[in-house]
């Protein structure tokens, strides 16, 4: 359990994080979203115990990060932004050092190191110095050190940044398969990642919490939620006819793919009506599908809008 209460961080006159309050229960994967400079990293640095909050409190597994920092840090694994590592060390030495300081010893340490080396496919670079590794490998070494002591709480600042699509997929699989009693907090600006791994998403901008909801609930806020995408040969006829439907707010047209997207009025679902219409008119339909909603559009709407969208509390 992570409990954050009225967390505020000021750098001089700049307020990086403003009065943030939320809890993360066990077993949850929380996605931390926000534009660059929103205060994501600052919040994570405070949770990890690197920065001291200006005011407010953070407790991790029952330990207040300011009064019991060592106990709280023991319960956490942290991947800092940019996945820093000691350049002159090899991944093998580095993992052993972290495991050592984390209090693992003897055979247990050996076993845990072996396990994260397997999980993150580091076998081939084990004895190469970290500074000579590619960005993707460095990121994986950073993840390995965060996982090595099998922590209850994982704080990962942009864990898939710099990875290729295959590696991204693997890291997401890894996060998704961590045991169910763990807490994972990941910050990202890749929205597909939130859909792929997160149970819950928090959106912040300018240091303030703007939305707190499941990815599905966020998608439901999208104007594309329940929108119908129709690919059809008689495009112009279809645009004309679909625009007339009462549930349809407006129609977007993509000519090159011979496709239209019917955006519904709030709360309506025009799929049935459009399906019916195309049967009546006898159109040659290539594809007819309902969209779940677009997170990127919701994200833009929330972070550029002036007021927050109320989420679940």
């Amino acid at each position: 359990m992570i409990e954050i209460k009225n967390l505020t961080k000021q750098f001089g006159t700049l307020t990086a994080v403003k009065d943030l309050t939320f809890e993360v229960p066990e077993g949850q994967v929380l996605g931390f979203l926000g534009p660059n400079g929103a205060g994501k990293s600052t919040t994570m640095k405070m949770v990890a115990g690197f920065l001291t909050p200006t005011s407010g409190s953070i407790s991790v597994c029952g330990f207040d990060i300011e009064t019991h920092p060592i106990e709280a840090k023991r319960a956490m694994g942290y991947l800092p932004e940019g996945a820093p590592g000691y350049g002159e060390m090899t991944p093998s030495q580095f993992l052993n050092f972290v495991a050592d300081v984390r209090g693992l010893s003897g055979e247990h340490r050996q076993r845990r190191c072996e396990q994260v080396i397997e999980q993150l496919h580091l076998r081939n670079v084990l004895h190469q110095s970290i500074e000579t590794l590619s960005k993707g490998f460095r990121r994986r070494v950073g993840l390995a050190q965060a996982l090595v002591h099998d922590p209850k709480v994982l704080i990962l600042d942009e864990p898939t940044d710099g990875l290729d699509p295959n590696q991204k997929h693997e890291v997401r699989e890894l996060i998704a398969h961590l045991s169910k009693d763990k807490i994972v907090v990941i910050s990202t600006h890749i929205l597909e990642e939130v859909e792929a791994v997160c149970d819950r998403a928090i959106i912040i901008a300018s240091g303030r919490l703007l939305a707190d909801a499941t990815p599905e609930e966020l998608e439901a806020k999208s104007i594309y939620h329940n929108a119908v995408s129709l690919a059809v040969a008689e495009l112009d006829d279809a645009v004309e006819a679909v625009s007339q439907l009462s549930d349809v707010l407006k129609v977007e047209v993509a000519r090159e793919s011979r496709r239209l997207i019917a955006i519904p009025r709030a709360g309506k679902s025009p799929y049935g009506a459009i399906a019916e219409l195309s049967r009546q008119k006898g159109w040659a339909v290539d594809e007819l599908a309902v969209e779940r909603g677009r997170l990127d559009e919701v994200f833009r709407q929330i972070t550029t809008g002036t007021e927050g969208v109320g989420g679940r509390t």
Partner: protein
Amino acid sequence: MNQVLKIFRREIASYFATPVAYVFIVIFLILAGAFTFYLGGVGFYERGQADLLPFFSFHPWLYLFLVPAISMRLWAEERKSGTIELLLTLPVTMFQAVLGKFLAAWAFCAIALLLTFPIWISVNYLGDPDNGVILASYLGSLLMAGGFLAIGSCISAATRNQVVAFILTVVVCFGFLLSGIPLVLDAFRGWLPQALVDAVASLSFMTHFGAISKGVLDLRDLLFFVMVIVFWLVANAIVIDLKKAD
């Protein structure tokens, strides 16, 4: 203490994983030898005395440039590469981290200093020196190196630029080294009461090291260096805490 040891081990291994250690040790030994035999008016042999005074009398000057070269990277590099965030989110206290890194750098200086042993063998072969005085001088030299290192470590924590750390450390160390001479004292004499000017004068590394290397093991001289080290390391921890965010 256990955590200090773990950080210490990683640090000292990192010196020897890069050319830093070898370059430093070779240069230190060459300069220490060259200064002893060629500089200082009367050479090592010409003095006709079996002691290591010419050898030790150049240590303050050697340290003035070589110790900042070690200390400049201590924290500046951690800050630049971002590993400071990693280190300070491990379950270690700030003071364990500061102490572990400092002790590693100090042990490294001690290794370089120990490797000057051939000069000690030579002087014992050539004559019959007072080995008690030599031992005291080695101790004094090591303590002085520790003082310089603690200053350098603190300054290194204040910047992420190693060159800035190096230059500032040399300047501050130079001030401490020579705080007994008019060049430094005159800067204070105009506006400080005499008692404080005397206090500044008493901070001179040179005076305290000189006393120890003459074989006078006064507890106050030893304590002086220990206090300098403690003071700067505490300052070091405070500086890191204050400047973590930038």
